[in-house]
């Protein structure tokens, strides 16, 4: 990746991360940890990899994103707003009555959202079906399935993976956000997932790549390799940290859903927002 592109994607990631913090702080609560750990992925997808036209969300040749870990809607909405799918002011309406931005993504409400998710596990099958449909139509399109490590407790995910691998749905690029934590604690303590790499290989994925969850260049390279690998199923594991990008939130004991209800947490958010704003201003100058 050339330096200019890396700089642009880094800037987009900073904007998305700042949006996430601002909108959740404005709302006073929300799924912060899992939103933060997919910020760089969103920047790579929306800043580079996706074939999309934000002015025509229903463009029939578009690539699709299924955020099966629907709880990370705030990160997705921020990326969509930064790309111009809807005005950025809308971000502050998260979870308001009648909002177009519900906590969990809804394809009937939000431009750019192609599948409703939030009941964990279900997006995996939907992504398989979308990718299957793209193949039936003979189209050269990709479906990016983003699934959480905690979400992989759900058996339906593994049913979908069997289908994706058995039918060689190479166009369904499975991205596991392995941020190590779920609502009740560390994934290894809740229901030890052991080795996702080995599991995906055992399920028939023959290109399984593991990259650092905040490494923009590595994520993008992995997606390039997955796109070039046409003869089998593709998985990318984001080796990440829940709450990524802000030390305070990375270390917060319970960072799945955060309440902005005390001075310490509000200051942490404000400091991070100010730091990101400064970075963005400098980069744009």
């Amino acid at each position, binding site marked *: 990746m050339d330096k200019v592109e890396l700089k642009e994607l880094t800037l987009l990631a900073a904007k998305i991360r700042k949006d996430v913090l601002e909108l959740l702080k404005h709302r006073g609560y929300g799924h912060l940890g899992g939103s933060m750990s997919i910020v760089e992925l969103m920047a790579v997808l929306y800043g580079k990899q996706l074939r999309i036209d934000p002015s025509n969300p229903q463009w029939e040749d578009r690539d*699709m994103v*299924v955020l099966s870990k629907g709880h990370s809607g705030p990160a997705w909405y921020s990326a969509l707003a930064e790309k111009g799918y809807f005005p950025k002011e809308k971000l502050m309406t998260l979870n308001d009555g009648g909002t177009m931005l519900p906590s969990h993504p*809804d*394809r*009937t409400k939000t431009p750019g959202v*192609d*599948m*409703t998710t*939030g*009941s964990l*596990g*279900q*997006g*995996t*099958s*939907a*992504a*398989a*079906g*979308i*990718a*299957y*449909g*793209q193949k*039936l*139509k003979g189209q050269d399109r990709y479906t990016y399935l983003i699934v959480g490590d905690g979400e992989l407790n759900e*058996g*339906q995910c593994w*049913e*979908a993976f*069997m*289908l994706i691998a*058995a039918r060689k749905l190479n166009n369904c690029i499975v991205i596991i956000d392995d941020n190590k934590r779920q609502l009740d604690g560390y994934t290894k303590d809740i229901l030890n997932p052991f080795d996702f790499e080995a599991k995906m290989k055992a399920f028939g994925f023959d290109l399984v790549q593991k990259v650092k969850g905040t490494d923009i260049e590595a994520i993008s390279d992995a997606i390039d390799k997955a796109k070039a690998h046409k003869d089998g199923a593709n998985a990318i594991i984001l080796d990440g940290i829940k709450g990524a990008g802000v030390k305070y939130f990375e270390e917060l004991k319970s960072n799945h859903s955060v309440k902005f209800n005390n001075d310490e947490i509000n200051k942490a958010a404000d400091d991070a927002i100010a730091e990101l704003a400064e970075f963005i201003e400098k980069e744009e100058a």
Partner: protein
Amino acid sequence: MFKLTDDRSKKGTPLAKVVMQTLSDVMNSDDKVVFLEADLAGASSSTIIQKDHPDRFIQVGIAEANMIGTAAGLSVEGFKPFVHTFGPFATRRVYDQLYLSGAYAHNTINVYGSDPGFCTGPNGGTHTTWEDVALMRAMPTAVVCDAADAVQLEWIVRKFATMQGIHYFRANRKDVRNVYAEGSTFELGKGNVLKEGKDVLIITAGQIVSDALDAAEKLEAEGISAEVIDMFTIKPLDADLILSEVKGKKAVVTFENHSIIGGLGSAVAEVLAEHAIAVPFKRHGANDVFGQVASQEWLQKEFKLTADDLIETVKGLL
């Protein structure tokens, strides 16, 4: 317009075969229709589709939740998926997938739940559903049909293939007695008065429509005039027809191959109660029980779903 068959003792084509032959024909002219199977092709005749349309026959293996979710994804891409599995797995087992990935997400999935109620036969209690209609009625926007015979089932399949949304139809896999003459057409959401009558109104659906007609004829011979409605669309329910036909009747009986909790009987009771219709009323169906194993014929008797059982209920009410 429908016409009744001349000979109700005759059976039509096995219903699973009707579904698959009809779908295969629909797929000849509509390339958006796809079919998903969860390892029951050999038991459901969907081998017909597998042979005729191998590209649009999608085998997902024994994974019903994934089958529904995959169907939802295909719908996102503009396809009109039909899926099949046994009734309990087509509803109970995948309810949240149908509800969220399907109905809530405004996707289209057509669900054939086979062998409802006593039709389970030798598959027994583990494969029995007496509550599929109750579940599917409760799902917002879902359409629910129970086919009386092969002619009506074919019409339902062709109709659903033209629609958007979640559509559930239940039917035996085996052949059942004919009710309608070939070429009959129907209207979704409209019940059919199959026999006029003055004393009692019998509202029924599914393959036991023919048993209800048998019962009505026997009652007639005994001087009791029974009207029979085939309410093949259980949701949306034809409330107008119920309200017009209940007028002057001494009693109303619903007759269903389903639990009396939440099915056709409950739906009719809701209409009667909300319109303050005070009339002796009985829901005749499975009453808070599990299924069991035996032949379909034995189970129909065991669960008191024969014409004679219905006659007893009618007489007890009058």
